[in-house]
């Protein structure tokens, strides 16, 4: 996917101005705590993704790239903070330079600005997971299974898969609810048909028998076969019976409604009581009520999240995952509220079923009332029916059910006061009316029968459609879940296999039989690891912190391999193995080299030994190691030059790059003089900010070294060590002759670096400067072990020596008798 060639950083985090060469190779950055190592990781991550992981996540509330990305002295000038990265895009086999300003982190300039390069960089920008810090590795190991699942899902970008699964589930749930409603409508329509036909069950022969009895009265052809389009009123002249009603049937409808009204108070009492009980609990527990009220809002909010902005207030978030995680955490907190919500919806649905059947009795009577001139009653019934239809909708929404408390307590059907008496009056009025002629009775019977048969058939068809839809939704959801689980199981199988392999490679000496088990379930991933063949346990049960660190890195590497496969070409490991002991770190280097030969790692560590091990294991070379020996707020990281500094300077001069040769020489001198000032106990003029100039350091180190060689010569003389006395005097003499020349040449270095004198300096002017400093520095180091000389003890030196003791001079003269 991508490899790094070089970086130029200005005013980002703790860095003022810094250039690093990666050369597409693994690079180690070593330095003490607070020396600016992580600032490099921040800058690389920012250059590639526009994000800085350290300013995001838990414990970073109030932090942002815009406010805290620039150097602290440039907060008001964010335009001064930028990163320029030269990268190599492995898929395209092309190099490009990205420049990204902290003031506009989402935008970047690229050169060359080709569409394929932009597409590749945009893809990289979507993978901030290339950075792994110590803070992050434990999230894979020391977290509860549900949280681990979230972390792994976020890393593998499984969010969209989970979203699809949720939408399929929601569609199935909606069709289940629709099917319940449709089934109730079938029941109502069937009851109305049966009531009219007076048949015990809706069977075609029973329907035809009843209908044909009436048709015979009217002299109509009898219907022998009941087919899909059978019309029970076929043959009636248009309009016959349509403006009248069937007296007997009407009376039955009125009676049915009247009876239903009489028992309305107790209809669905069990479900009503259950709902009221849950509502009382919500009222008594304000926190639960708060969670409940937020729940549906948050659930809806989650579905609206499509970009890194709050869907309610438009507040910006670092990224969309960040926002989703925040909302999900809120949802998880309201589990009890969810149980109440589910119970309210369940009882609401059962109540809705009874409501549909009840309200189905109202419509025929409303029509009847209108037919006989009882318009007021008809209007009351129609309005009531409309209100009950709305109630039916409300019963499908938990938050609306909560607001129905008083209605449910005081008679949820809200039977209008006058209705019972009016229906009784209607009954009496119809009874008191003249009996219908046999012909009219038969006509109205058939038209009503056909009407109700049509309603029944329509309800059946609708029910069938919804039932099929529900079955399809159920099957689709089940298939998706099955495919998802198979793929995830396969993924976890590969990941756990790689994880175990990597961990064994890391800890082969003491855990050669290590195995791990990742067990995914609907919403969690459990990780168990083998502990010395005693069984599988959670990682934190018996393994040391160092081993857990190792597990975190191994799991991360296994997941990254699964995620990117051969395109896992870059990873930023920020101090991730600090707790792994030295033996295991060497194995870790070998693991990175053998398993991830094509991956460029940028590894930071504050442990000098670990930095040395990376070199001795061949993971990096002297040239691909950078040491930050100190940091100040004014200078940023102070970089130690690598061992190949003189070759680099010669190479720069060979190309005529005097400016870069001078910069490299100055950085090297700054580093060496700091080391020597410390090791030899030189006393440059004190500066409270620790920002010593090269001039101060060089003068004081030269003075100190001359004094030490002088002490060594005197001591040797006093002890009668002639050869040592001679060497010490020669060294002192050489330094004295150097001193004057150094001042002139140091001026040259300063001028080349700090003044606009580039035109005055040619290659030939600078070559002698380099040679003089190289010769001078050799006076301060051992030719055998290459270490810089030091004194012991520092406060009142008694010995001048190197690490291997090939150079060892006594500084204390023999006491006089």
């Amino acid at each position: 996917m991508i490899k790094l060639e070089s970086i130029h950083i200005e005013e980002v985090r703790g860095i003022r101005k810094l250039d690093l060469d990666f050369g597409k190779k693994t690079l180690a950055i070593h330095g003490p705590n607070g020396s600016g190592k992580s600032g490099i990781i921040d800058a690389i991550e920012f250059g590639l993704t526009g994000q800085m992981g350290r300013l995001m996540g838990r414990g970073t509330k109030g932090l942002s790239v815009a406010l805290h990305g620039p150097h602290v002295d440039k907060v008001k000038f964010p335009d001064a903070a930028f990163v320029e990265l030269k990268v190599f895009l492995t898929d395209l086999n092309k190099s490009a330079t990205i420049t990204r300003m902290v003031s506009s982190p989402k935008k970047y300039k690229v050169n060359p600005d080709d569409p394929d390069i932009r597409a590749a960089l945009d893809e990289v920008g979507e993978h901030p997971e290339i950075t792994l810090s110590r803070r992050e590795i434990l999230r894979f190991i020391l977290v509860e299974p549900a949280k681990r699942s979230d972390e792994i899902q976020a890393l593998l970008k499984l969010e969209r898969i989970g979203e699809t699964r949720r939408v399929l589930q929601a569609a199935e749930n909606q069709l289940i609810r629709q099917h319940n409603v449709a089934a109730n409508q079938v029941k109502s329509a069937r009851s109305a048909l049966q009531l009219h036909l007076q048949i015990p069950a809706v069977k075609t022969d029973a329907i035809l028998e009843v209908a044909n009895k009436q048709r015979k009265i009217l002299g109509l052809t009898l219907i022998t076969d009941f087919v899909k389009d059978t019309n029970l009123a076929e043959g009636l002249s248009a309009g016959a019976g349509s403006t009248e009603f069937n007296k007997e049937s009407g009376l039955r409808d009125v009676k049915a409604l009247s009876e239903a009204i009489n028992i309305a108070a107790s209809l669905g009492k069990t479900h009503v009581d259950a709902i009221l009980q849950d509502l009382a609990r919500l009222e008594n527990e304000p926190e639960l009520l708060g969670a409940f009220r937020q729940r549906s809002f948050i659930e809806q909010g989650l579905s609206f999240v499509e970009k890194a902005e709050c869907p309610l207030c438009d507040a910006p978030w670092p990224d969309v995952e960040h926002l989703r995680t925040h909302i999900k955490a809120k949802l998880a907190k309201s589990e009890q509220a969810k149980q109440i919500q589910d119970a309210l919806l369940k009882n609401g649905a059962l109540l809705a079923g009874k409501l549909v059947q009840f309200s189905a009795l109202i419509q025929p009577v409303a029509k009847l009332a209108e037919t006989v001139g009882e318009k007021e009653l008809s209007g009351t019934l129609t309005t009531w029916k409309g209100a009950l239809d709305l109630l039916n909708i409300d019963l499908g929404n938990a938050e609306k059910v909560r607001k129905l408390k008083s209605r449910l307590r005081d008679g949820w059907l809200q039977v209008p006061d006058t209705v019972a008496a009016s229906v009784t009056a209607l009954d009496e009025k119809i009874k008191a009316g003249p009996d219908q002629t046999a012909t009219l009775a038969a006509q109205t019977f058939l038209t009503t029968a056909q009407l109700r048969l049509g309603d029944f058939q329509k309800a059946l068809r609708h029910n069938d459609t919804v039932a099929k839809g529900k079955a399809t939704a159920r099957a689709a959801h089940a298939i998706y879940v099955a495919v998802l689980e198979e793929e995830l199981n396969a993924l976890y199988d590969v990941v756990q296999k790689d994880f175990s392999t990597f961990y064994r490679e890391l800890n082969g000496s003491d855990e050669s039989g290590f195995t791990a088990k990742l067990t995914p379930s609907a919403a969690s991933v459990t990780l168990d690891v083998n502990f010395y063949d005693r069984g599988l346990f959670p990682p934190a049960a018996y393994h040391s912190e160092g081993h857990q660190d190792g597990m975190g890195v191994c799991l991360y590497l296994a997941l990254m391999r699964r995620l990117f496969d051969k395109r896992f070409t870059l990873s930023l490991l920020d101090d991730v193995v600090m707790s792994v002991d030295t033996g295991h770190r060497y194995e870790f280097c070998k693991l990175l080299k053998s398993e991830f030969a094509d991956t460029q790692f940028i590894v930071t560590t504050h442990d000098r030994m670990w930095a040395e091990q990376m070199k001795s294991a061949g993971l990096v070379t002297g040239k691909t190691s950078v040491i930050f020996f100190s940091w100040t707020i004014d200078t940023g990281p102070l970089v130690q030059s690598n061992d190949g500094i003189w070759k680099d300077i010669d190479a720069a001069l060979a190309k005529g790059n005097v400016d870069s040769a001078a910069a490299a020489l100055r950085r090297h001198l700054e580093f060496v003089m700091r080391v020597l000032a410390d090791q030899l106990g030189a006393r440059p003029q004190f500066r409270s900010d620790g920002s010593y100039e090269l001039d101060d350091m060089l003068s004081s180190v030269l003075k100190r070294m001359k004094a030490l060689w002088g002490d060594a010569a005197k001591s040797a003389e006093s002890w009668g060590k002639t050869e040592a006395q001679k060497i010490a005097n020669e060294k002192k003499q050489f330094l004295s002759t150097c001193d004057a020349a150094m001042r002139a040449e140091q001026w040259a270095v300063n001028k080349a670096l700090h003044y606009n004198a580039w035109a005055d300096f040619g290659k030939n002017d600078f070559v002698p400067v380099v040679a003089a400093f190289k010769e001078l520095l050799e006076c301060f180091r051992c030719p055998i072990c290459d270490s810089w000389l030091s004194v012991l003890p520092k406060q009142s030196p008694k010995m001048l020596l190197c690490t291997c003791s090939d150079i060892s001079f006594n500084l204390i003269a023999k006491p006089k008798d």
Partner: protein
Amino acid sequence: MTTLYQKIGEEFLTRLAQSKEIEPKKVERLRVLITSGKKLKVQELVTAFTGGDENEVK
């Protein structure tokens, strides 16, 4: 690069097509929704699941 989401989506549609429980017309509607790249919506799925018949759910 085929993402896990795409891989699961393709396998899901293949199995839907093989299922005797689901009408081909509905599978095609789902295919359009799943491969559109847009965020799935519940109501679109409900319509797709029920829309294979003449009567729409209202």
